């Protein structure tokens, strides 16, 4: 095992080990739990940082890989590793961990021992999802995560917590069991074609050409099974109904992790499994997928607009933002995919920020109704500034992180599906509207007596906001390193989904070159095509039903 792989495994499993250690601490020592959990999660983050520098950006391969045979007769391995896409999300997870623990200090006033242990267990299962390179291992982490989340919401949540917790659990579980069937089906298809039993993600992706030769119905069913599992997690319209419930009822840390990490797993699943394994089935269903994503963008924004509860508003804004990410993914070109991945990162910074901000006023006044607030900027200037920054980051103001992601997604989507991109823009406009409106109603206007007594942020609260602000500004000013790290993996992914994509691009470039020099005759058959060949080419490949057949 290489040193970097050790580092990765250590950072992943440290929270779990720490949680087991905390079991032996007596129940009364609340401070020990608070400090230890932050320390453990911060240590896990610090351990994870070197990997950012160790990662070789020139290769699309899975790095830091480590594999040991687990059940040889079934082809199951304990196999871990990361490529640029997983690394980015994995780092986002380690980054969010300490923030989630730190923000719980104030609002977890009972049963803290269980709380921090579940939080630590949750962190390991989240991290495990991104490093798993074996289907079974991935599935185990994917499911395990539900149990701590169920407890976090069910014990420390709001008034409707029981309903929200079981809803989250059952929704996600029913989606993922169908994915299990799809995994089995591919597993046996693989056995039939090359007589090997293998659960590695790599071998599953290598099955794509074989799957492309199966019947259309089979491909569509496979694509649907994967789609359902991930669409519920994202969540895409109409599978989003668990999200507002879970968010509103969850404690702040739960919302932070739900919005920051868990939703990203859905999109991660799309790029890691659905697109590379069943590209043709996805293309067959593309119109429906696009429609659902687009409805999600606009519907989410419209519903967010009318919310009276701040947390619900942010929850619906997630539906809208994630819909936009899905559009970027379904563009199936490098800009869309990169933009979507990048936007996932941004959403993982701005939305937790917003949830934390809502959590702060909730801790002070125990209400989340927008109508109960007003004029807060007068008594809480620091809070108002931070809230403003997070709002701006969420609605995509230039120089903050959100802008880059949205712009890239829309660029990519426009190249493949121009009209969809045009419609999706309305979601962004609406987004600005509902966020600013909420900001206005909460921060400005006359101030009531109760609100006037509210205290501004304390040191701890500023401490957990500051990393988010630093990241938001840093990404907004200099996004290049974050884009670069995804470069090769996204290129590989595009080649898996559209093998001809870069050929068309290269051809177009050559033609453009030829046209400039004025040697039109050289490439006679294609010479009349304009410069924008790749843009037009992409929809053609997509439109051909079951392209690979």
């Amino acid at each position, binding site marked *: 095992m290489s040193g970097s792989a050790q580092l990765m495994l250590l950072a992943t499993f440290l929270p779990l080990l720490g949680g087991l250690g905390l079991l032996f601490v007596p129940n009364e020592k609340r401070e020990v739990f608070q400090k230890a959990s932050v320390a453990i999660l911060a240590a896990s983050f610090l351990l994870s940082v070197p990997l950012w520098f160790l990662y070789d950006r020139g290769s699309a391969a899975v790095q830091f890989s480590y594999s040991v045979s*687990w*059940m040889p*007769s079934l082809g199951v391995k304990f196999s871990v590793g990361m490529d640029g896409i997983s690394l980015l999300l994995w780092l986002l997870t380690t980054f969010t961990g300490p923030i989630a623990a730190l923000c719980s200090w104030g609002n977890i006033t009972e049963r803290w021992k269980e709380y921090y242990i579940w939080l630590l267990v949750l962190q390991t299962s989240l991290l495990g999802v991104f490093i798993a390179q074996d289907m079974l291992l991935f599935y185990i982490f994917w*499911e395990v995560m539900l149990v701590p989340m169920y407890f976090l919401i069910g014990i420390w949540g709001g008034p409707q917590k029981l309903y929200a917790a079981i809803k989250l659990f059952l929704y996600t*579980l029913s989606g993922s*069991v*169908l994915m299990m*069937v799809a995994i*089995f*089906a591919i597993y046996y298809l693989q056995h039939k074609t090359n007589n090997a039993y293998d659960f590695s993600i790599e071998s599953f992706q290598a099955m794509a050409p074989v799957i492309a030769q199966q019947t259309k119905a089979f491909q569509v069913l496979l694509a649907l099974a994967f789609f359902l599992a991930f669409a519920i997690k994202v969540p895409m319209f109409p599978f989003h109904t668990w999200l507002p419930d879970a968010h509103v009822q969850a404690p702040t840390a739960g919302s932070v992790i739900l919005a920051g990490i868990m939703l990203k797993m859905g999109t991660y699943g799309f790029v890691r499994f659905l697109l590379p394994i069943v590209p043709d089935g996805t293309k067959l269903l593309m119109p429906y997928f696009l429609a659902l994503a687009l409805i999600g963008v606009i519907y989410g924004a419209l519903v967010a607009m009318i919310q009276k509860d701040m947390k619900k508003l942010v929850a619906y804004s997630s539906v809208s933002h994630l819909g936009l990410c899905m559009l970027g993914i379904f563009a199936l070109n490098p800009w869309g995919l990169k933009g979507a991945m990048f936007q996932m990162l941004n959403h993982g910074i701005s939305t937790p920020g917003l949830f934390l901000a809502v959590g702060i006023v909730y801790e002070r006044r125990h209400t989340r109704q927008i109508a109960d607030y007003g004029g807060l900027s007068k008594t809480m200037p620091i809070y108002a500034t931070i809230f403003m920054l997070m709002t701006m980051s969420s609605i995509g103001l230039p120089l903050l992180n959100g802008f880059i992601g949205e712009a890239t997604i829309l660029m990519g989507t426009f190249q493949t599906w121009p009209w969809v991109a045009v419609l999706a823009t309305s979601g962004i406009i609406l987004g600005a509207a509902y966020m600013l409106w909420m900001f206005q109603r909460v921060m400005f206007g006359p101030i009531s007596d109760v609100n006037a007594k509210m205290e501004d942020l304390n040191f701890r609260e500023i401490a957990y906001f500051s990393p988010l602000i630093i990241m938001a500004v840093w990404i907004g000013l200099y996004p290049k390193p974050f884009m670069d790290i995804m470069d090769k993996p996204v290129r590989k992914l595009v080649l898996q989904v559209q093998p001809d994509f870069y050929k068309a691009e290269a051809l177009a470039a050559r033609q453009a070159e030829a046209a400039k020099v004025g040697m039109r005759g050289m490439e006679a058959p294609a010479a009349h095509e304009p410069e924008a060949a790749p843009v037009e080419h992409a929809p053609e490949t997509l439109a051909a039903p079951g392209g690979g057949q």
Partner: protein
Amino acid sequence: MLAPSFATGLWEALSHDLQYIWPQMLLMVSGLLMLWPLDSWLLPWTKAEKHKWAIPTMAILLVSLLISLYTPNGLGFSAMYKVDGLTKGFQALCILASIFAVMLSQKVLGALFEHTAEYYALILFATSGMLFMCGAVDLVTIYFSIELMALCIYILVAYLRNQERGIEAGMKYFLLGAFSSGILLYGISLLFAATGGITTNLTELNQKLAVVSQDKNLLVYSGALMVLVGLCFKVAAVPFHMWSPDVYDGAPTPITAWLATAPKAASLAVFLRIFGTGFHGIFNEWEAPLMVIAGATMILGNVAAIKQQSMKRLLAYSSIAHVGYMLLGVLSRDAQSGAQAIWLYMLLYLFMNTGAFAVVIYLQGKNEGERIEDFSGMGKRHPVLAFSMLVFLLSLAGIPPFIGFFGKFYLFLLAVEQGYTTLVVIALLTSAVSAFYYLEVVKQMYFKEPAEGEVEPMDSYSKFLISATCAVVLIGTAFGPQLLKWTDDIRWFEKETPAVILEFSNN
């Protein structure tokens, strides 16, 4: 001169065949000894308490487990009884389940207030019946061994004879059990007639069934169907499951835990013998009915469990549902891998089920645990107990990384390979439903406030029993390779692989 040579011949045959049934012999003889000379002479003399029989019983069961593992493979008693991987594997399951039942019957758990020698003796007799079931390869031996098991269980179910519920359970189980045995026997006789009244041996039956003339088809189908119905009664598959919740509810709780595992393991072994060997050639005839039964069992078992208020009934319905999953293994065209998947599932189920019942029994001893509400606030009152129960329930629901997931994974993997994708989808969706009612208990334990009252610390025996089982369920998946290696040994011996028989299946 005839008599001595007959005697020597008999002796030779016996001495050869007896080697296959030493475990059963041990169980029966020690059971008999317990009943008569020891209990009435020895014990009063040594002044030992009657429930002290538990430890000897466990020892006897353990010895018989060891003997059964080292029994040579072979065919004995005029090819009516066979020892092979399947026999040994399922025998181990039955004996393990009986050991667990005895462990659960301990007085410290407060499950039974009256312990007598016959309680343990009946468990031993029933276990020997199960061991015979695992190895029976002839319809007649199958029938006899089923009866041997069932008669003992009827009495054990009605063991709480001063409670109305107990009597009702025993009566219900006896009537319906007798009825189903009748159906089974009738089915057997029809098949016997259809194949010309020559054989009841499963292997020969399979060959005969393949060449049976067209006009006998009705006999064959109705015979096979009746055997199917009779066996479905024994494993409580829908629609022949009605007896099971009432019986589970009324029986002493250790016996309920035992009923959910041991007889089902043995009956599934019979299922595999009859359908994997005897009826393998007419697979296409029983495939559809069994598919419907399996699907219905999963759906009804899980859906009906949702609204249960009693913990024992909930576990009863959940055990119906688990049988539904295991029937997927019987459906496998490759009977051997089907047997392996069922065996693995049953082994893992044995642990989670025993664990869950151990918790229920412990609480019953404290006069609670009967209803789901009794679990409220358990997370605060008994953290270890509640956490163990959480692990058992999540494992029953098939949430990884607990062993229940591993069993489901292996079983459903096989079923998808055999082409039962729709049934697997039903199975997985209903297991998502099952998560709902298991989590209902979890909800009570962790999300509800505890009832008033003093909390008694757990005694060391219960604590050990529950947390040891919990540890197995918790980290069992890590031993996947070892489990798979054992599973690989569940095979019938070479000369009788049903491969030859497959040729007839097109008729």
